[in-house]
């Protein structure tokens, strides 16, 4: 080392002059400087964590819990209290959300577990200004209260002479329709509080977990808050500014490749299609057939065929095809005119709540035209909360007042909404046209309008016969409103205009399949009874095709009975040729058709069902027949069920109750299926 030292030191002396050696002093100095800098940089970035000396945590001395919610509300300045009866946490979650909502409307709320408070204090709620008690009550088991609401329930039952006239309240009930005592607890609380003198300020909300509890809650809450504001005469947070959820950003000079032009999910997903196809990634099926099914009359019935070759999409008869329609461009243009905006401006609406998963109300960036055409519902009558939020943009004070009133729960307000909006079938354009002082900014309106939903149709073909083609049977919706306007159904008119051309341009329909549980029996020998008047015949065309195919395959096929109904034989007897051929070939062992308006008295499918009662009862009771009903939910399905009860009563020797149980049991066991719509 010393030798080296001697050598290197010998070298280093002339170092300052030469620059030949490998490491000059300067290099070392610079190197150390860099290291020092790096060390300094790291040190200043992150202090090394010392492993701390940790004292044992003192458990805080238990404070006496405040059991008076009145005192708590007074202490914390809250005027709204949301009690929850919750077993799995959903009721509690809803209560928390509602209490947070309050501040958007200039109020302060808190959620409360009824088990922790003295519920007897409800009569004292009037001590607080603008007080309101909301109850989110779930039903548990067989119509029972949740564990944490048991005491409250007992209290309600026992105290008949409790005077709750100082209490203003509303109830949202959480339940499940498959249970017999649907929402029993919520309904009870709503009724009982009224009996004890309390004042209900908004209708009972019913949430159905078998359907969509979240949706039920959100719709109820959207209408609830405007009603609350109306009731307390409270303005929704500030007169000039509005409670916006999204912030508008206008784009100039954006590359068109980054702008959405109607895609549901991924950008350019309509140009570059990739399976698998579903509700977020629909397949663009080309329309290969679009023909009228009606022979005369003013209702337009149509049959379409969609080509799914190459999509790898599979379906079964009975499944539903979902399509993403677009709004009528004339309607969109008129909206642009009335609002006085350039519809082709490219914008984004960004969520002000950065923690929310929902960044935009619809795919952004996009143009107003695209949003109104592809993404927003502009044909259904707007809900009350939309009117409430837009009221501020009506320059005429009377208009403003009316709009707010329609969102309230006052009887005049409700009646006004019922008549002026719903009864007159006014959509957003009609409202804007008939209330000229209302001039909302288009971006706020876009934030408030609901999303345009996909439409579902029962598939009218069998995949055994048509594996690459999906058939649709639909009636075009078009009607005149009391205001003299013509309202057109979005999807049916859109489908009607999907013409099959020879000029090379294909009409396409973005679609996906939603599996249903409406299925032919597994065994072909089981008889089937199909009842499907009007467009309800759709899935049965698939069923009939499949039964025919099974026969062709040499299988033994049980009885196949069809009940169809329409207005006039010469006008809307759908698929007449196909049905009569099927009857001739023995695929349909029985074809019964009711023409409701071809004679003096109305004849419907349920009348024909009753005429055949002996044969039907035999098929149902002895031959294990499966019954299928498709079509109108409101009247037909109900009437057919009633006809079957009658047959059971008469021929099965049962009482009305027993017959009802018998038929209902067929439903539980999957031998009586319904595919109905309202």
């Amino acid at each position, binding site marked *: 080392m010393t030798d080296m030292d001697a050598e290197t030191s010998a070298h280093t002396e002339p170092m300052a002059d030469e620059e030949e050696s490998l490491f000059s002093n300067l290099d070392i100095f610079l190197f150390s400087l860099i290291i020092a800098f*790096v060390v300094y940089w*790291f040190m200043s970035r992150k202090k090394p964590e010392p492993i701390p000396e940790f004292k044992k945590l003192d458990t805080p001395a238990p404070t006496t819990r405040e059991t008076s919610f009145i005192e708590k509300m007074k202490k914390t300045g809250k005027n709204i209290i949301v009690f929850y009866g919750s077993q799995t946490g959903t009721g509690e979650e809803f209560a928390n959300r509602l209490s947070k909502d309050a501040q958007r409307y200039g109020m302060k709320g808190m959620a409360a577990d009824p088990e922790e408070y003295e519920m007897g204090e409800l009569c004292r709620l009037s001590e607080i200004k603008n007080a309101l008690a909301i109850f989110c009550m779930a039903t548990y088991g067989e119509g029972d209260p949740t564990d944490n609401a048991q005491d409250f329930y007992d209290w309600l039952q026992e105290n008949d002479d409790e005077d709750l006239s100082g209490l203003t309240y509303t109830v949202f009930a959480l339940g499940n329709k498959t249970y017999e005592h649907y929402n029993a607890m919520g309904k009870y609380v709503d009724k009982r509080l009224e009996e004890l003198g309390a004042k209900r300020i908004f209708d009972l909300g019913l949430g159905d977990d078998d359907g969509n509890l979240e949706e039920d809650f959100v719709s109820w809450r959207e209408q609830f808050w405007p009603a609350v504001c109306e009731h307390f005469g409270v303005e929704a947070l500030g007169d000039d500014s509005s409670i916006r959820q999204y912030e508008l950003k206008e784009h100039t000079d954006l590359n068109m490749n980054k702008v959405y032009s109607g895609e549901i999910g991924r950008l350019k997903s309509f140009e570059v299609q990739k399976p698998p196809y579903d509700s977020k990634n629909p397949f663009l099926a080309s329309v290969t057939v679009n023909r009228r099914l009606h022979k005369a009359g003013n209702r337009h019935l149509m049959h379409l065929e969609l080509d799914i070759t190459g999509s790898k999409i599979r379906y079964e008869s009975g499944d539903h095809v979902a399509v993403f329609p677009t709004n009528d461009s004339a309607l969109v243009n008129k909206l642009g005119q009335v609002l006085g905006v350039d519809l082709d401006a490219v914008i984004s609406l960004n969520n002000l709540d950065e923690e929310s*998963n929902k960044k935009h109300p619809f795919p952004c960036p996009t143009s107003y035209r695209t949003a109104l055409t592809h993404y927003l519902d502009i044909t259904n009558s707007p809900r009350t909360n939309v009117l409430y939020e837009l009221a501020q943009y009506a320059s005429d004070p009377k208009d403003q007042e009316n709009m707010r009133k329609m969102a309230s729960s006052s009887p005049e307000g409700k009646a006004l909404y019922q008549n002026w909006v719903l009864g007159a079938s006014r959509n957003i354009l009609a409202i804007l046209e008939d209330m000229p002082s209302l001039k909302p900014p288009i971006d706020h309106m876009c934030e408030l309008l609901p999303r345009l939903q996909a439409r579902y149709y029962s598939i009218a073909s069998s995949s055994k016969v048509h594996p690459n083609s999906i058939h649709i049977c639909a009636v075009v919706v078009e009607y005149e409103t009391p205001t003299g306007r013509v309202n057109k159904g979005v999807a049916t008119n859109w489908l009607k205009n999907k013409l099959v051309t020879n000029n090379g341009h294909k009409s396409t329909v973005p679609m996906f399949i939603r*599996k249903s549980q409406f*299925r032919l029996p597994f065994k072909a020998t089981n008889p089937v009874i199909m009842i499907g008047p009007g467009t309800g015949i759709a899935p049965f065309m698939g069923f009939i095709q499949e039964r025919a195919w099974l026969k062709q395959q040499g299988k033994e096929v049980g009885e196949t009975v069809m009940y169809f109904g329409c207005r006039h034989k010469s006008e809307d007897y759908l698929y007449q040729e196909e049905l009569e051929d099927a009857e001739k070939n023995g695929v349909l062992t029985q074809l019964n058709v009711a023409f409701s308006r071809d004679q003096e008295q109305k004849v419907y499918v349920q009348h024909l069902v009753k005429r055949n009662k002996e044969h039907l009862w035999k098929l149902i009771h002895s031959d294990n027949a499966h019954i299928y009903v498709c079509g109108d939910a409101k009247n037909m399905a109900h009437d057919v069920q009633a006809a079957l009860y009658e047959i059971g009563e008469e021929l099965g020797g049962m009482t009305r109750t027993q017959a009802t149980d018998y038929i209902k049991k067929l439903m539980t*066991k999957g031998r009586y299926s319904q595919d109905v719509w309202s």
Partner: protein
Amino acid sequence: MSAEKMETTASVSNGAGPVYEGKEDALSPEDLSEVLAAGTKEVHEKAENTQFVKDFLRGRIRKELFKLGAVALYYTYTAMEEEIERNKEHSHFAPLYFPTELHRHEALARDLEYFYGPDWQSQVRCSQATQHYVDRIHQVGQEDPVLLVAHAYTRYMGDLSGGQVLKKVAQRAMKLPSTGEGLEFYQFDGIHSAKAFKQLYRSRMNELELDMEMKKRLVDEAVKAFQFNMEVFEELEEIGKTIQEDVLDAGMPVHGAMGGDINKCPYYAVKTAASGGTAYASQLAMAVLRHPTGQVLLATWFAALAGLAAWYLM
């Protein structure tokens, strides 16, 4: 068949005759769906009332146990769906073959990946109770496929009923993301209405051609299936007792469950400090070495040393 019936009941004016004839109650269930429901009612209640399930419903479920539960489900459904695939054309199972709608093993694999990370397969194993269940499923699938119906019925119908409630409880109790990770098992994307699907499933069960004796055997097997499930619950309860007590209510998670860096935990450090000086010192050294800043510091210190040495030497 129908012709015969017509003749024998010719004395009665209609073809089928009244439902309530004489003493025999013609509504007494012969349908498999009803026989199974009735036959498993008791054992179903018993299963609902095990401590594990009762705690679960109240939201008292520790994440570590939930994860182990998911592991057990994974092995169970993998076995069951394997046997279902094997027997999908067998006359005693075909009507119930609904892979798109029902099959769970892929969803469970995704859940396990969420809980254990990408190399989850090397981290999980089949517990003893689960192995009993799995063995029975394989035995049944290979030797007596009709009994597979009992296992499918027990699990899938349950998943579509109370199972939906469990999902909500689990999500809330373990603060799982609302986007559904960790709970894909409970999500039946191919089924729009659980109610309608159960009805369809029942109708298919009733289409199986089985005599009463066979149906009784199915009930026995279904009861066995419930018992296997209860055995798994009990095993989980036992494991639960040995897991380090966590104070779930106070919101402080167990290290393993949260997958955090144990060396950042002050409690752990105190514990190891208390357990012995040298151990502590080596722990400390390891901790420093494992810590990225420690590594940087060491590196820079080394570099500075080298620089100084070079300066000195040259």
